[in-house]
């Protein structure tokens, strides 16, 4: 029986690979975009403009205070009502990027706030411009604090990408649902799905741990 199920599973490996590819593509694209946007928002959030900081803060609270599944549904089902037609992949990317940007913004902002004011004053006193102060003095020090939680957050976001199967994207989780209809062994199928996620996430978990160890030891610039 089990043997038969295995054979049937092996037969569906092209589908599994497609699912894995979808999960990796979704995660990679939205993490890259989310990191760029999150960094920009984090810098803006700490730039001293209260209105900008408030608006960003409100948006982040909104996103953090609602389930991701609801956010995806809102983007996928509500936006077309206003004439914005999205395919599922784009909707998934938008939702995940938004989620990533919000979490990353807070991590980056916390890192920036952890840099002592004396550092900014020293940079200010030597005539560095606002961008130079950020680039040369504040961000490198903020990154030492932010990198380990940032990589940890990536892992969480990759796992959150499984929610996009709800709008019909054939990612790893949805492949699980499809296969289990043919091979009625949920334990086996979803164990394999779990392994798929783990294979993607584990290198990042190792990287986070390594960075954390490096942060506590080193005093120089952060090198990956």
């Amino acid at each position, binding site marked *: 029986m089990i043997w038969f199920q295995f054979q049937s599973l092996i037969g569906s490996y092209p589908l599994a690979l497609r699912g894995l590819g979808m999960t990796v593509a979704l995660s990679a694209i939205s993490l890259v975009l989310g990191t760029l946007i999150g960094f920009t928002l984090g810098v803006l959030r700490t730039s001293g403009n209260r209105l900008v900081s408030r608006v960003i803060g409100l948006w982040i609270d909104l996103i953090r205070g609602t389930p991701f599944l609801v956010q995806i549904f809102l983007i996928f089902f509500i936006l077309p009502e206003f004439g914005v037609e999205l395919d599922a992949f784009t909707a998934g990317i938008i939702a995940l990027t938004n989620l990533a940007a919000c979490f990353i913004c807070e991590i980056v902002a916390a890192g920036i706030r952890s840099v*002592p004011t*004396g*550092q900014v*004053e*020293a*940079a*200010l*006193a*030597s*005539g*560095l*411009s606002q961008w*130079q102060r950020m680039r*040369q*003095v504040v961000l*490198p*020090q903020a990154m*030492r604090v932010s990198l380990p939680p940032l990589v940890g957050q990536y892992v969480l976001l990759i796992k959150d990408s499984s929610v996009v199967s709800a709008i019909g994207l054939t990612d790893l989780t949805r492949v699980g649902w499809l296969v289990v209809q043919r091979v009625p062994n949920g334990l086996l199928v979803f164990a394999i799905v779990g392994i798929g996620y783990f294979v993607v996430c584990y290198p990042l978990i190792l990287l986070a741990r390594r960075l954390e160890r490096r942060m506590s030891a080193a*005093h*120089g*610039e*952060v090198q990956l």
Partner: protein
Amino acid sequence: MIEFRGVNKWFGALHVLKDITLSVEPREVVVVCGPSGSGKSTLIRCINGLETIKDGRLVVDGQRLGDRATNMTELRTEIGFVFQSFNLYPHKTALENVTLAPIHVRKIQRTEAESAGREMLAKVGLAEKFNAYPAELSGGQQQRVAIARCLCMRPKIMLFDEPTSALDPEMISEVLDVMVGVAEEGMTMMVVTHEMGFARKVAQRVVFMDEGAVVETGTPEEFFSDPKTDRSRAFLSKILRH
């Protein structure tokens, strides 16, 4: 070079600078002293705009602070500021610390900035420490790097905010020696310090502040041997007792 006229500043309800009128001539070395909380740090932090003034006139190197025409970032490149807590960049080596602003602000070629930086670090006695990170240096060494970092910008004015207060006693003199050297080269300096030996050696004037106001100014000789006010006498008896 630096001119305060009727300068006032408040922190909330606290009147931290009261009607300050004071000027510092080119190549002059002025020591500012007074009890803690007297506003002396705030006074020199106003000069490079780390604090803003509420009213009055403050003119530095011919430019009025708070004026629209005054480019604060540009003015700051002419003013070196040495902090009590050094504030070296911990992620950069000594040499990177002293070359950062010359390269990015003065737009000097990296190789040129580095050779100037090495020369300056050697001058403050740190020829062996080019590649050391701040965490690997003693307090006295860090403060000397901080002074070199300012000097590498070839400033017109140097401000020191209690440069030796955070140092262990045996490291104070190595920093003061560097400061004396800077003074003797003709730098315009304003130094907040209680190091009376330094004041006697290089200062042309001592300014005594208390409760946000300039109470007394005079040459070091006059001030130390014949203080004019009760408050300065009380202050001197406290710091010179030991």
